[in-house]
């Protein structure tokens, strides 16, 4: 045990002095989400503000005089009206960005309204242009409400008469449950991915790197058992994977707080999710998961002759990890006895349920069982592989 501790201690020092590993293990998971979220959030916010504040250029047919709606529109919105004698072929001006929209009122629009009929307006716009549709639509809806009010008053009818039934929405799902259901898949995806990436570089460095630097012979000639060497190194690979995954989650939560465009309610709930129970359950799943990952990464790193070869083998394996993690984000797939037995898929789905507070502890036990089995298989495979002299000394 003392020897394993000595080996692990040395490997920790060695790993923490490797800039490449530090970057992948600490800097990227911790800063990625705050940087992405703050960047996206600020860009989104400023473009939304611009879209809602800028003056809209709206064309209309000039023959339609004293247009009550257009007056209403200029009162409510920052709009510049551009009259045309004919609107034929003018829609191309929208495409060229010379105009934001064109309003083509039907013949006798106000007469129809006055006669309790429906007046039609053709509203030409580009849906890809942010803010145009919603700004004009909002004013139109408000204008319509005003007209309805006037009509009802004219015929002396109470507004309740035309609204005989009202559906009052009373959602009993908590915000936490909703986040767990719709966005909870993102959290396991993040930590599964970073758990793998965080363990990957130390694994390559501590096994393939030893071969590349020709230090493997030095350690093999020391009076320690191969299983002690493997265990000491494996401790470091597993610890860095867990550490990296936890930092990614911290980064994700910090990032969400940077995203000022998110509703306050969601930000508050994300804070509530980070409770002792969640962290404990997460850690207990992360430990066997990372041992399983180490069980995949270590034999590959032992086999590879160079850092480059190790990376080229691990890259496709990375996809095999990401795909089941994505399954956790798909709608309709839930934690069941079958999915609880599939590694990675089970952890993604279980985390969603834990976040939503709806986890079934029976199924969680199946998840732990499945993860422990694959973790043990990974350890067994690594031990067997490290014991073979043609694997360790393959150069």
């Amino acid at each position, binding site marked *: 045990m003392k020897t394993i501790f000595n080996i692990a201690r*040395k490997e920790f020092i060695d790993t923490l002095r490797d800039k490449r590993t530090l970057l992948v293990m600490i800097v990227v998971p911790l800063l990625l989400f705050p940087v992405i979220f703050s960047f996206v959030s600020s860009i989104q916010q400023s473009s939304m503000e611009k879209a809602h504040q800028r003056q809209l250029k709206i064309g209309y047919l000039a023959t339609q005089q004293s247009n009550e709606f257009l007056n209403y529109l200029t009162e409510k919105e920052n709009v510049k009206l551009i009259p045309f004698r004919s609107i034929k072929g003018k829609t191309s001006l929208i495409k060229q960005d010379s105009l934001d929209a064109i309003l083509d009122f039907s013949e006798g629009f106000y007469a129809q309204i006055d006669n309790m009929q429906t007046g039609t307006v053709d509203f030409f716009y580009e849906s890809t242009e942010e803010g145009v549709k919603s700004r004009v639509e909002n004013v139109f809806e408000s204008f319509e409400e005003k007209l309805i009010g006037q009509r009802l008053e004219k015929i002396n009818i109470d507004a309740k008469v035309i609204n005989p039934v009202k559906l009052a929405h009373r959602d009993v799902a908590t915000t936490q449950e909703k986040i767990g259901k719709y966005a909870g898949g993102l959290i396991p995806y993040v930590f599964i991915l970073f758990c793998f990436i965080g363990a990957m570089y130390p694994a390559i460095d501590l096994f393939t790197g030893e071969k590349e630097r020709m*230090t493997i012979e030095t350690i093999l000639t020391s009076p*320690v058992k191969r299983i002690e060497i493997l265990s000491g190194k494996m401790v470091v690979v597993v610890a860095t994977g867990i550490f990296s995954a936890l930092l990614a989650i911290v980064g994700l939560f910090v990032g969400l707080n940077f995203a000022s465009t998110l509703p306050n309610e969601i930000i508050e709930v994300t804070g509530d999710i980070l409770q002792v129970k969640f962290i404990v359950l997460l850690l207990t799943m992360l430990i066997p998961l990372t041992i399983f990952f180490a069980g995949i990464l270590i034999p590959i790193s032992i086999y590879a002759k160079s850092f480059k070869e190790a990376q080229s083998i691990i890259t496709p394996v990375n996809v095999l990890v990401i795909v089941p993690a994505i399954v956790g984000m798909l709608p309709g797939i839930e934690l069941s006895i079958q999915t609880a037995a599939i590694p990675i898929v089970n952890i993604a789905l279980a985390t969603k349920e834990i976040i939503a507070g709806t986890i079934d502890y029976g199924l969680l036990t199946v998840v732990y069982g499945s993860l422990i089995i694959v973790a043990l298989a990974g350890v067994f495979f690594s031990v067997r592989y490290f014991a073979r002299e043609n694997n360790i000394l393959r150069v």
Partner: protein
Amino acid sequence: MIQVTNLSKKFKLSKQQKKKMHLSGDWITAVNDVNLKCEPGRIFSLLGPNGAGKTTTLRLISTILQPSKGSIQVAGLDAQKEGQKVRGKIGFLTGSTGLYDRLTPEEMVTYFGKLNSMNQETLKYRRNELFHTLGIDKFSGKRIGELSSGMKQKVSIARTMIHDPEVVIFDEPTSGLDVITAESIIELIKQCKEQNKTVIFSSHIMSEVDLLCDDLAIIHDGGILYNDTMDQFRAQMQSDSLTKEFIRIINEQQN
């Protein structure tokens, strides 16, 4: 003492290796029926061209590899049954320094002292002694990656000798080193002999062998072609130089 009896080592070939080496069989014999005896206080040289089986033999003695056949005794211990204890008696030094670039010399040597189960006090004393003798004190706190090749080789020597091994194995120890650094290795080998240690070193440089060794074995294609004392080798020479004699013996075998 090292006693090697009827030692053979075969490696299983992968499909790629068979294709690359133009071989049809599944196995290749790296060491074939080798017998050696290295005595304490004497320097034994394993001489042979590249690919002759020198490194494989030394790796078998140091228990990195397991023999396919035969037996190895190191310091009275069976290398196959008591591999861990055997490694505790051995110091292994190669031309490639085999050091961790991100550690300091102090951390590196301390680490190997701990792996050799040395107690804190002995380790500290022995480390200070070696660092002083080899002049490592001046750079003991620097990262190994920042050191010159000469400095690195000194650290490598300290790493090899920290546990004061009974048996010291040198695998082409001067390969790729500059003259000054190579000289420090030659000095170390001589000191080991003076300290009555069992020394075995592999080389393909005849001048080194001539300078250092008491006993000599020439290995080629995994088999021993010659095995006797250096004095006997000189006495039986049919060529006018040691190098020519070495080449003659190899060629004779090939023909």
